[in-house]
């Protein structure tokens, strides 16, 4: 009479113990995962989450780096969009980089990589030559270009004058300063070129052979084989290029400081020379935060920059569904 309830209770106990053991095992697994992830979690929290949250908070304060932040609500954002007359030129200059500088870099790097895949002799030498500028420190490279493009004594304008061409003022002209920086950027495409080269070498020979059998010429092979095959790499270089352009600082800072022809202490007051044509968004942000002790406002600028970077990257990634092809994936 009593065996059925006893057996039921026993079964329930066993089931409960099993559930407990399962839960324990699950917790142990979670603990292990967390333990293994902890170096990353610590790094991510300390170097990303904390600065991001702090920056977001500081953007709502007046903070001069020296005294306690004072809450001002959205005043910094209002000042940015309503009163600060330098923000829009800085945004325009940064947009210029995104529209001209980044595509020029991608195209040039792709072109050089393509040429290197076709070369039959001295490939190693050419690869080294085109990659070497990437090893030159940014400041040194920029100084070199300011010297090369000096309108009075630079070899480029001297060479142009021998051809009867009156060379431009380069870094001293608001029309030419950004193209001068673009030339500097094209010179330093080594890393991008190596990525393209690896992608081009990886394109399947069979695809080219099939296309040839179908009667495709060089342009058609490029259009229907090469570009689709390396499209993930194009997407990668584009995203990295856009993010880099949103953070463009060192070259602009050095070029303006040197070209203006003042001592180092004073030239920092001439960032953006000539006529704010090289005043990019990060340069203005630095100027506000570290030159004018306006860190609250600089933090607001940083938050907007983060939002824009996120937005642009999302747009590029969304659009990539239309033009990026992954091997083995279905469209």
């Amino acid at each position, binding site marked *: 009479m009593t065996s059925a309830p006893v057996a039921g209770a026993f079964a329930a106990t066993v089931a409960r113990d099993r559930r407990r053991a399962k839960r324990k095992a699950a917790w142990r697994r979670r603990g292990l995962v967390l333990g293994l992830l902890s170096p990353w979690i610590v790094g991510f929290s300390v170097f990303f989450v904390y600065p991001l949250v702090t920056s977001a908070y500081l953007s709502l304060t007046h903070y001069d*780096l020296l005294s306690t932040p004072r809450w001002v609500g959205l005043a910094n954002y209002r000042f940015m969009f309503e009163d600060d007359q330098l923000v829009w030129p800085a945004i325009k200059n940064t947009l210029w980089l995104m529209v001209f500088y980044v595509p020029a870099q991608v195209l040039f790097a792709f072109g050089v990589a393509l040429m290197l895949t076709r070369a039959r002799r001295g490939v190693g030498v050419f690869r080294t030559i085109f990659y070497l500028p990437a090893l030159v420190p940014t400041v040194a490279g920029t100084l070199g270009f300011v010297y090369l493009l*000096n*309108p009075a004594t630079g070899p480029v304008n001297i060479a142009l004058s021998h051809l009867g061409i009156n060379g431009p003022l380069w870094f*001293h002209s608001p029309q030419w300063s950004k193209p001068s920086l673009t030339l500097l950027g094209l010179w330093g495409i080594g890393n991008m070129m190596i990525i393209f080269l690896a992608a081009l070498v990886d394109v399947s020979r069979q695809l080219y052979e099939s296309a040839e059998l179908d009667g495709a010429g060089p342009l058609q092979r490029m259009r229907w084989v090469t570009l689709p095959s390396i499209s993930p790499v194009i997407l990668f270089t584009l995203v990295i290029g856009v993010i880099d352009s949103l953070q463009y600082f060192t070259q602009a800072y050095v070029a303006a400081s040197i070209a203006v022809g003042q001592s180092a202490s004073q030239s920092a007051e001439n960032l953006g020379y000539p*006529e704010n044509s090289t005043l990019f968004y990060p340069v203005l942000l630095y100027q506000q935060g570290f030159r004018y*002790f306006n860190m609250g406002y600089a933090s607001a600028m940083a938050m907007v920059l983060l939002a824009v970077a996120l937005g642009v990257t999302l747009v590029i990634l969304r659009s990539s569904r239309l033009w990026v092809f992954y091997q083995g994936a279905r469209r």
Partner: protein
Amino acid sequence: MRRMTLAFASTIALVLVVFGASAQGAPRSAATAGSHTPVTISFWNGFTARELGLINKAVAGFHKQYPWITVKTTGALTADKLTAAIRGGNAPDAASLFETDTLGAFCSSGAFQDLTPYIKRDHLNMNLFPKTIRDYTAYQNKRCAMPLLADTYGLYYNKALFAKAGLKSPPRTVDQLAAYAKKLTQRNKDGSLKVVGFNPLDGWYENAPAHTGPMWGGQWMKGNTSNIAGDPGWAAWLRWQKKLIDWYGYNNLVKWQAGTGDEFSASNAFEVGKVAMNLDGEYRVAFVDAEHPDLKYGTAPLPTSRPSLYGSGFVIGTIMAIPKGSHHPNEAWLLEKYLATNTKALTGLSLGLKNVPSTLPSLKVPAVRKDPHFRVFLDIFANPKSSTQPVLKIGSQNQTLFATFVGKWQAGHVKPQDLHAGLANVDKQINDALKQSGQVP
């Protein structure tokens, strides 16, 4: 037992509160002014190499006078480094900065201590210093800094080029300056500029609104607001400047300028004879002596738009302060007072660094007045009409905003009829920035 614990805890809390409050209180200067307990203080400053050696020499003189205070100096200080040190609670006992522009931010935030209690305690006569110095070492009547030598700006002219052009003495008016500049200019066969009489382009070497403005009596502020458009001096300067630039040709001038050597090198355009007249600081005398001792040149006050202004000029200088967190503010004050006012120390520093000594009595020391090139700058410094830049919470932002407009103006990208509107917009930008910083309500 419980009561005893509570009483003990309360006593501890009370002690902590009392000591905590006293630690954060007013400078303990008055309390420890007479203490001769041996102490080592830190003095961070911007000097390096040979110049730091000269500072150390002056500091040795201080140690002789105050043997219980040993000073440990550290050079190459910048405003960024000092900001980080103050924020990190590792501030030096005394600090000296070249970046005078930053005083407004340091002073308004309390990062530099108010020196008034020390000045009052020691009955220091601040009239030892010209008004310009008193102006650039205080922010809104709060004296947060003391001067450590000064820079003044004048005109350097090449005597050989003057003789070649048939000119005997330096120009005294801005009209003469323009006429002399044209006479002294030499062109190459292709029309490019070989020697420029005077380069009016703003942004080159020491050509900056703050340095040029005093020639036209330009004043930056009216009360608490920017008044560049309201002061006729600035517009007069810009019209004069544009006229001379157009005579050279803007592109010609920029091209010539790009080919000139680094300002602080032996290739300096004035030192190598590429520019006949140049606006520069008193320190250039030392550079010429060291790099081109054979150069035949003269110095003079900058030409002015009004005869009454002649002899005056722009004055600025290095500052010394006691940062928040200084462990020995009283000893730091003694050091700063010594370096700012001791005539012997100032003479030694002035002769070594070739900067203007910052007190009026030290200007009369024969050794300092010996070099006629240098003497001109001492007189500009002492001139009651000499001026300096305003000390603002926004640092040098007002100068940058104005310089940006000048850059557009001189390139011909602002129509002459739009000059006043452009200057008014510069004022608006500066006033907006002042408002945003909280300096102006």
